[in-house]
C-alpha cells in the first residue's frame, strides 16, 4: 500500500531524496565550492518538487492559442511561475556566493573549510 503510494508519487520521493543528498554534501564536504554545489542540488530538488506539484498527466503547456477548442487539459501554470522566481533567486544567490568565495580566497588563500577554521583562531 505504502509502496504503491510512493510509487505513484515517485517525483516527490526523488525530490526529497535529492534534498537530503544536497544537505549531506553541504555538511560533509570540506571544500566550499563543493558545499555550494550541494546547495545547488538542494535548490534543484525543491524546484523539481514544485513543478511536480503542478504536473497534470497528459496536460499541455498552458499557452492558449486562438481557435483551440474548450476543455483542453493544461498543466498547472502557477508552480511554473513560482519556479521561474525560484530560479532567479537561486542564480542571484550563486552569483553572490561566487563573489564571496573569490574574496575569501583573496583574503585567506584557501577554500577548505577545515583550514579556514584553523585560521579563525
Amino acid at each position, binding site marked *: 500500500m505504502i509502496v504503491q503510494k510512493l510509487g505513484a508519487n515517485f517525483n516527490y520521493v526523488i525530490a526529497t531524496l535529492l534534498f537530503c543528498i544536497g544537505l549531506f554534501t*553541504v555538511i560533509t564536504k570540506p571544500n566550499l565550492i563543493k558545499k555550494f554545489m550541494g546547495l545547488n542540488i538542494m535548490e534543484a530538488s*525543491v524546484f523539481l518538487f*514544485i513543478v511536480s506539484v503542478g504536473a497534470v498527466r497528459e496536460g499541455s503547456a498552458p499557452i492558449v492559442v486562438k481557435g483551440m477548442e474548450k476543455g483542453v487539459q493544461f498543466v498547472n501554470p502557477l*508552480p511554473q511561475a513560482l519556479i521561474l522566481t525560484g530560479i532567479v533567486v537561486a542564480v542571484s544567490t550563486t552569483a553572490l556566493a561566487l563573489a*564571496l568565495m573569490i574574496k*575569501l580566497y*583573496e583574503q*585567506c588563500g584557501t577554500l577548505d573549510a577545515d583550514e*579556514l577554521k584553523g585560521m579563525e583562531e
Partner: protein
Amino acid sequence: MAGVSGHFPILIVVVPLVGAALTPLIGHWRRRLCMPWAALVMLFTFAMTAFLGVRLSLHGPIGYHLGSWEPPFGIEIYFDYVAALTFVIALFGFLVIIFSKRYVEKELEEAKISTYYTLILLILAGMIGFVVTGDMFNLFVFLEIISLSGYALIAIGGEKLTAMAAFKYLLVGAISSLCVLLGVAFLYSITGTLNMRDISHMLTLTDATRVASVALALFIVGFAVKAAMFPLHIWLPDAHALAPSPVSALLSGLVVKTGIVGMIRVLFNVYRINGPLNYGPVLNIMAWLAGITIILGAFFAFFQNDIKMMFAYSTISNIGYIVMGLSLASYFGIVGGLIHVFNHALIKTTLFLCAGAIIYKTGYRKLADLQGIGKKMPITMGAIVIAAVSIVGIPPTAGFICKWFIILGAIEAGKPVLAGMLLLGSLFIVAYYVKIINAAFFREPVHEITEVDEAPASMLIPIVILAIGCLLMGVFAYAPLAFIRPAVTGFLR
C-alpha cells in the same frame, strides 16, 4: 481610503525599493548625496508607516489587493497589528543611516559608498515587505531580498574573515530559505493556494495533517536559522561581530526579527496553532530549545572579550526570550514575546551603534583595550549602560517588560521551570554586562587614548535618541501594547 493614503501599504515597500534602485544613479552623479537621499527615503517611509500605525489603531487591519486581484488570486498585502513593526524598521533604519554617515566615510572605500546605501535601503525595504505581506510565496521572495543584502553587507568592509563570516551565513541562510520554500511547496500541494489566510482556511478542510506537520517543521527550522535559535545559531556571532557596526545594529536589531515574524506568521496566522488542529509537540520543543538558547547564549557571551561578539551572543540569548514567549502560546507569553521583538530591537541597536562609535573613535574592540573608556566617551558609554541595564531586565527600563510578561506567561501555561531558565539566563547576562561596565568605568586605561573624545554628532544623535527610547519604553511600556494586545487576541481566537 481616499487619495494617496489608501495606497500607503504598498508605498511603504515600493518607496524604499525605488529609492534603492535610484541610489546607484545618484551615487554615480554625486557621491556625497547618497546618504541624504537614503535618509530622505527612509524618513518618508517612516512618515507613511506612522500614518498607517495610527490608522491601524483606529480602524483595525488594512488589506491591500495588488493589481486589484482579490485574494487568493493575486497577492495581498495585509497590514495587521504585527505589521506595525514596520514603524520600528523605518525609524531605526533612518537612525542607522544617519549614524552610517561618518562611519562609512572612514571605513569604506569611496566606490562602495553608494553600494552600501543601496544595500541598506534594500534590506530595509525587504524587511518592510516581509512583514506586511499576506502571501506565503511573497514572504519567501522578500526573505531572499533581506538575506542577500545581509550577506553582502557583512562582507562590505573587506577586513579579513568578513568574507568567511558572510559565506557561513550565506550557506546556512540559503539552506534555511530552501526549507521555507519547500515548506511553501508542501503546503501548496495540499491546499492549492498561497494566500496565508486562504491556506489557514484550507488547512482546516484537508486531511493531510502529516504533510502539514512536516511543512510546519520545515518552516520552524527555516525561520529558526534566521532567528538564530539554538542549535542553529552558529552563523550569528561571526556575522554580527565582523560586520560594520551600523550593519551589525541592523542585523542584530531587526533582521533576526524577520525570523521571528516568520514564525509568528506561520504559527499563528497560517497554522492557528491554538486552533482545533493538533500539530504535536512543536511548541513544547520550541519552548525548551528557547530555554537552552537563553542560557547558552548568555553563557558563551561571558567568555568573549570582543564587545561586539558579546553583543552578538546576547542577541542569541534574547531571541530565546522571544521564542520562549511565543511558544508558550498563552496570552501573556505571546505579549511578552512580541514586546521584546520591539524592545530588543531598540536595545540591541543602541548597543551596536555605541560599539560602532567606540570602534570608530579608538579602533579597539577588545574589552581589555577599552578600559577606562567611560571617562573619555561618557555619553556613548552612558548609553551602553542604559542599554545594558535594559537588556538585563532591570526595571524600569525597556527590557524588563518582556521578562515580566514571559514569566507570567510561563506560570499561566503551567511551565514555571521555563521561567526559571529565563531568570537564570538573565543572571548570566548580568555577569557579562557588569564586565563591560566595570572595564569602562572602574578601571584605569591601559592605552594612552588621551586624544579620544566623544563621537561626532551624527553618531551621537541616533545613540542618544535610542538610549532615551530604552528608558521611555520602560516607563511607557503600555504604548506598544496598543498594537500587541489586539494582535494576540487575534492569534488566540
